[in-house]
């Protein structure tokens, strides 16, 4: 029982960052229909930003996270304008290929600049864990958990309570109608990609210090983010949040009680099962036909 609860605590912390990754991608995927393979690279980008600002430049750790989020936003906007805008009418697989190209360039660019050796980021948090009875959590993880929840809240507010969010939702529902209603689709797409990217960078900025920062960190992040989005359903922030926690639980429980070798298979098995039972993801309304 104690072991189980420890697994639950682990899963909650892991899930919060998965959710952050998932939300960014679900916005991009849902609204723009771009299979964004570069999402994981923005995650890595955020982590490297923190490394650059807090370790190399020696500035405040919390400030470096803010820098990472803003830089992610900018880079996202740039990618959108340069790579995606000219491809607006292309097929989903053609834009996907462009994003794969961007992924290859960014990943190897990171390695070229920073080298292959993983970097670690020290934080102002004490290394000794919080211990409550038989349970134990590091204070950095707790910070990450609450920061992630805060960012999820901000994203939720942005989408549901602001004018921009309303326009984004309208575009998600029906791009043509939204455009007829006077919504500037170009701007919405840019904003969507920028916000999605900054959320990915935020996830990287938070997790970089927890793990280590390396050029390859983006690969697994992309794959997990896709899994989360599919679990939650396209374009659903609530869905992506729940999907993130679900994936984390599946992995924890799978590794803890079934087989650690199949830990990463758990998420994928759930996806396959979910899609076979409810092909539109768990929390999305079905798309319209025609």
């Amino acid at each position, binding site marked *: 029982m104690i072991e189980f609860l420890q697994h639950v605590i682990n899963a909650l912390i892991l899930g919060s960052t998965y959710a952050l990754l998932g939300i960014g991608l679900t916005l991009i*995927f849902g609204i723009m*229909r771009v*299979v964004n393979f570069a999402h994981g690279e923005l995650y890595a980008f955020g982590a490297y930003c923190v490394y650059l600002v807090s370790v190399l430049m020696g500035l405040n750790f919390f400030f470096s996270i803010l820098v990472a989020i803003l830089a992610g936003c900018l880079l996202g906007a740039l990618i959108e304008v340069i*790579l995606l805008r*000219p*491809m607006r*009418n*292309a097929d*989903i*697989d*053609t834009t*996907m*290929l*462009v994003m*794969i*190209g*961007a*992924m*290859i*360039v960014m*990943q*190897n*660019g990171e*390695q*070229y600049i920073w080298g292959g050796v993983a970097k670690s980021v020290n934080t102002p948090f004490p290394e000794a864990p919080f211990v409550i009875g038989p349970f134990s959590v590091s204070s950095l993880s707790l910070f990450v958990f609450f920061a992630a929840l805060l960012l999820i809240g901000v994203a939720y507010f942005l989408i549901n309570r602001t004018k921009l969010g309303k326009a984004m939702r309208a575009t998600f529902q029906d791009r043509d109608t939204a455009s007829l209603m006077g919504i500037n689709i170009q701007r919405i797409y840019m904003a969507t990609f920028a916000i999605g990217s900054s959320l990915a960078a935020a996830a990287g900025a938070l997790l970089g210090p927890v793990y280590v920062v390396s050029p390859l960190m983006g*690969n697994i992040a992309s*794959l997990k983010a*896709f*899994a989360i*989005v*599919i679990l939650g359903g*396209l374009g659903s922030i609530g869905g992506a949040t729940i999907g993130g926690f679900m994936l984390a639980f599946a992995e924890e429980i799978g590794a803890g009680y079934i*087989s650690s*070798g*199949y830990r*990463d*298979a758990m998420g*994928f*098995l759930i*996806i*396959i099962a979910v*899609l*076979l039972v409810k*092909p*539109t*993801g768990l929390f999305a309304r079905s798309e319209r*036909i*025609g």
Partner: protein
Amino acid sequence: MTRLFPWVALAVFASIPLWLHDPYLLNAFITTGIFIIAAMSLNLLLGYTGQLSLGHVAFFGIGAYTSALTSLGFDVELIGGLRVVHEPWPVWTGLVLGTLVAGLCGYIVGKLSFRVRGAYFVIVTISFAEVVRLVALNWVELTQGPLALTSIPPMTLGLPGLGYFDFYSKQSYFYLVLAIVVISYVIIRRLVYSRVGRAMVALKENESLAVSVGIDVTRYLVLAAVVSAGIAGAAGSLYAHYLKIIDPDVFLFLYTITMVIMVITGGKGTLAGPIVGGLIFGFIPVVARSFAAPEVQWILYGLFMILIVFVLPQGIVPAVENLFTARSKAEFPASPKAKIQDAP
């Protein structure tokens, strides 16, 4: 002229071992050829039925493992204490079984996953490939997991008592790969230019309309998946017996991406597309290696990919065809896609 072109191309390829004696380049042709076969199989799904399978490497890997295990033999205990012992069989049966088992997996995956479309289908196929990879990694008794299957025998053709021909030399392996390329090309060509191919194109274009004239969606999607997976499995078998070692890295996501790049840059939905794209992206690393730093080679690879997609979004082959039709004013427009955007 266009009719002759495949024959001319075949003659040129067939002549390569006669004048190219550099084993390194011949090696590049063989591995590129193997990936071209895989890309051609992917093109059947992606280019003709419009379904993007990002788990295609699973079939490639399944073919590779099946073929290797057929020729190496194995001894595993299944759930319930059932022990399965397989004595090594002649190597060519591995190629056949690799193709069949991959095709069977294509059938199962097709039956299950064609219930979803678009982005969902993409993710289901990625998930499938990851699960297969993890099984290959963790079912150590059968696959040796990360310890790799080694000493895989070279491909041989023949029957007990009748003598064998082995494809040990690079020249002979080149012709073996070329033969499989040709067989795959013919199979795909015949399918595409038949009512089966028309049914696939109809499904890609407008599924509701296709079923309304009596085309059974699932049947043709599954058929495409079976043929496609089978051909990918054959490519995997060729890979295993050429490299003579396989481990779960054969399921690298990068390999799927390589196939997709070959298909899309060459021109999806065209017969020559994967071959042209395959040759280009098979040889970029060879060329880039001679002058660029390792990371820069990759960066160039990525940039070149983006460039091709930007300049020729339909791919190289349709663009070249367009050039020809624009000159000769042929009857059939070669690049239909270019005009879709204008339609209501």
